């Protein structure tokens, strides 16, 4: 018989599990394409060249990785204190919306001032969008999962209204639509490559800082305690609700900052919002597991998966929704791999004990 035995996952396996999960998603995505009847020959080559093959491809991948790191870290932080926050998408859009509105309103204010105010306003909006549901969870016992998920829709409608774009154009159907920022916003004078590099640098620094905090500080200890067992943390005198609120605000602020920075164009290169970055951030967080530092490779991988899949669907003439399929597969594979890594699978054969001359008349093992 096959026996599943629970155990603590060894470190090597804990690292291997998300890697394998990511590979599984990368393999299964073209397989879906083939199942749907599209030509999927040399799919990997197309995906690889779409993600890394050219300077343009590389910069697209890196440009997407920076906001993914921020939304991924945002999701990871909320998950780490047992907040089921699915609202990174909405917080990102909310942050962007704040920038767009401020940019429109403050058309006559000097550009640097607008940039500073907008950069602060984005995180603030994001923080409020998560702090609200978390406070409601603590006070009223409402479910933060539903609240954050529904706020995504509200933010999306807000963006659609503010930009005058048809709702469908930026709906998260996988169509990674961009829209132009209002003319009032100053575009940064930097080149595309520089903006991508700055974006990556900021995102990486934030991840490293988060890693240092969780690993080496008392705050990190408290967060791990809440994540491991909120009841025991409460009994031990840790103010769980207050810390969840704080972490929720920080998490929302990160996503909101990603939105604001995208809208302002100082991360992500192209200077526009693409829908789906928040949802993909959840996949990043699930791949990264419990380490903020692992968000960096996870985000790079997911970004490559998205740009590669986009290239593939262009090459095969398939819908752009293929990128969403890739994300969905990652979302399924990552927790499955993590769960499996906590079990050891043994194949056991029950060996009958050596027959030690059983007395006649007593039951014998091979009796049927």
């Amino acid at each position: 018989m096959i026996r599943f035995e629970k155990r603590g996952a060894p470190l090597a396996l804990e690292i291997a599990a998300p890697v394998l999960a990511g590979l599984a998603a990368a393999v299964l995505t073209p397989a879906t394409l083939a199942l749907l009847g599209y030509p999927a020959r040399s799919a990997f080559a197309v995906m690889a060249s779409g993600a890394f093959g050219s300077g343009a491809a590389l910069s697209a991948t890196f440009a997407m990785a920076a906001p993914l790191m921020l939304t991924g870290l945002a999701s990871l932080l909320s998950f780490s204190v047992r907040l089921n926050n699915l609202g990174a998408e909405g917080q990102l859009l909310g942050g962007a919306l704040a920038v767009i509105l401020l940019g429109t309103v403050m058309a006559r204010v000097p550009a640097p001032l607008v940039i500073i105010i907008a950069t602060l306003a984005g995180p603030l909006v994001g923080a409020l969008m998560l702090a609200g549901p978390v406070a409601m969870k603590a006070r009223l016992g409402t479910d933060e999962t539903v609240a954050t998920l529904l706020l995504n829709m509200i933010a999306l409608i807000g963006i659609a209204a503010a930009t005058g774009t048809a709702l469908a154009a930026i709906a998260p159907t996988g169509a990674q639509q961009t829209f132009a920022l209002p003319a009032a916003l100053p575009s940064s004078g930097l080149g595309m490559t520089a903006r991508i590099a700055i974006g990556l640098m900021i995102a990486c620094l934030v991840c490293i800082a988060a890693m240092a905090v969780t690993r080496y500080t008392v705050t990190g200890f408290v967060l791990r305690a809440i994540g491991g067992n909120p009841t025991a943390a409460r009994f031990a005198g840790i103010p769980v609700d207050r810390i969840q609120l704080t972490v929720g605000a920080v998490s929302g602020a990160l996503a909101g900052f990603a939105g604001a920075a995208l809208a302002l164009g100082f991360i992500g290169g192209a200077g526009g919002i693409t829908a789906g970055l928040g949802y993909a951030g959840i996949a990043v967080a699930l791949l990264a597991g419990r380490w903020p530092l692992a968000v960096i490779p996870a985000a790079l991988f997911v970004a490559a998966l998205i740009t590669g899949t986009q290239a593939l669907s262009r090459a095969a003439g398939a819908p752009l929704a293929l990128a969403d399929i890739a994300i969905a597969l990652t979302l399924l594979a990552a927790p499955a791999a993590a769960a499996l890594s906590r079990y050891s699978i043994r194949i056991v054969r029950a060996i009958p004990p050596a027959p030690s001359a059983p007395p006649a008349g007593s039951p014998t093992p091979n009796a049927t």
Partner: protein
Amino acid sequence: MDAAREPPSSATPATPAVTSPDVVLDQEAAFWDDSGAAWAASVDPAAAAPGPPVALDQQAPLISDAETAPAAPAEQPAPSLKEALGLEDAPAILKLDGLTRHRGDAPAIEDFDLDVRRGEIVVLLGDNGSGKTTLVNILSGDDAADLGLILIGAANRRRAPRRLRQGSRAAARRAGIGTVRRQPALAGTLTGLQNIAIGARSLLRPTLSRRALRTKLSELMRRLGLQVELDVPVATLSGGERIQIELLKTAQQNFPILVLDEPTAALTPQESAVLFKALRTLAEAGTTIVLTSRRPDDALAAGDRIVVLREGRKVADLRARQCDQATLTALLAGRAVARVAPTPRSAEHAVVELSLVDAPSMSEDPPLAQLSLVVRAGEIIGIAGTPLNGQSTLVSVLTGLITPTAGQIRLFGRNPRRSDPALFLRAGIGKVQGDCRRDALVPGMSVAENLVLECIGDVRFTNQGLLDGRAIREHAARVIARHGVGCPDLDAPVETLSPARVRKLVLGRMFDSKPHLVLVHDATRSLDLAERAEVHRRLIAERDDGAAVLMISDDVEELLTLSDYVGVLHRGRLSVPQPAGAFDRQTLGLMMGGHGSLAQDWSGWGGGV
């Protein structure tokens, strides 16, 4: 027909074959070393002769119907030569052959053999960690042995016994093994009848009417002498009543073999007696029963045969009528355990006072109603009660986790600003929760980190907001050494520890914080006898050092030995604590079952306020 031909199996000698000739079961012989534990001590009835069994007399009042002792001992046939050699044809209905199951490195059971005859009640008696539950899990199909066989004898003795396919619940049920697990598998919101019907309804015969089931059950209840309300939600029933429902659920399916895992763990002595009587009736009708227990008195009251387990091995296989409590206790522990006998001490100022406190329920525990309690420095207050009568809620109130909805809580005579665990911890309230894994420890964090969980803000462990890893580890090593946690690896994730070690870890953490109130809920759960005695000594030492001790427990023995005062918690209401001398096992058991006069007095008093 078979039953008629066979002599009452309870009257046949259990294992007459003498595998080890020179075992004389008296006090000295109980000091077996580990190597000696490998064999099964099969005791010749004659060898146990010195000293008549005495403990049965003590237990007699427990069994409400003393006549239920094994019937017709006079007809006991002398073991024939054939039987003595183990060659008799009457085969065992259940035979375990060399069962071995390893868990991690340590064997949970090692080379375990057992023959059980039809209509016999066999008690597997063992301390915590002795492998009882592993055996039950293998019998019930929840688990499979690494080595060894289970053979099920056919009712028709001409047919050869069948080998049980292990690791399959369905196979175990088909083979005729019905199991009552330790955690009753009942849906709390459904009534008893509905719970039983879940198991009884066949998908092939959905027409089996509820009325027929009810008739069948009331007949069964009458026969077994059970009295339990079938039409109220199971959540409102006591532990004893739940076990009755569980027993009915299994018994009405007419399994020839019944396996019960520690059915009396959460019962009062009276509830246990009712259960044993029902089991006896079933056995007399031909059902074979295997149950586990860690209480010698239960084993003596229930069993025809008592098989003592220690560290996964069978150390003795005795007939119940030929042994006494002292023998069993010595066998159980494998060494002498000094009993703790505290001397009373005069109490001082009140550390904690609760007056007329109402509190909302904590998980499945009932809410507290009108609860008043004073715990003074230098005294041990015992709170008796079967599980889920408000104990966890009481712990939550006393540690500041939940705020009373009415009434007052005072620490050192002052009202705390608010109910807040951090505040209560700083005031010196140390606790050991009933379910340590659920409430006291953080999985994923190491042993060392868990030991500083309650004092991580302390300057000893931090350096400008940064964790001082070395200080944390040194502190952990000190706590582990000083409080006998016996945990070699400071960095091991806490979820890898055994239940006993988890309990000792939390006890050590609590004792090390030098609390003014020592609040322990089932302090000795999962511990073996020696460890239990050590904890008892420690609690008394804390009291003598001037700490107030509140000991919540369902162990009558422990409560009556250690406590200065004992109160009974029943359905969220607490009786007025009385000096422990005012109780004996019987009265305390009755009150824990909600029948006692004191409990009624109190509820009347509480309702009037």
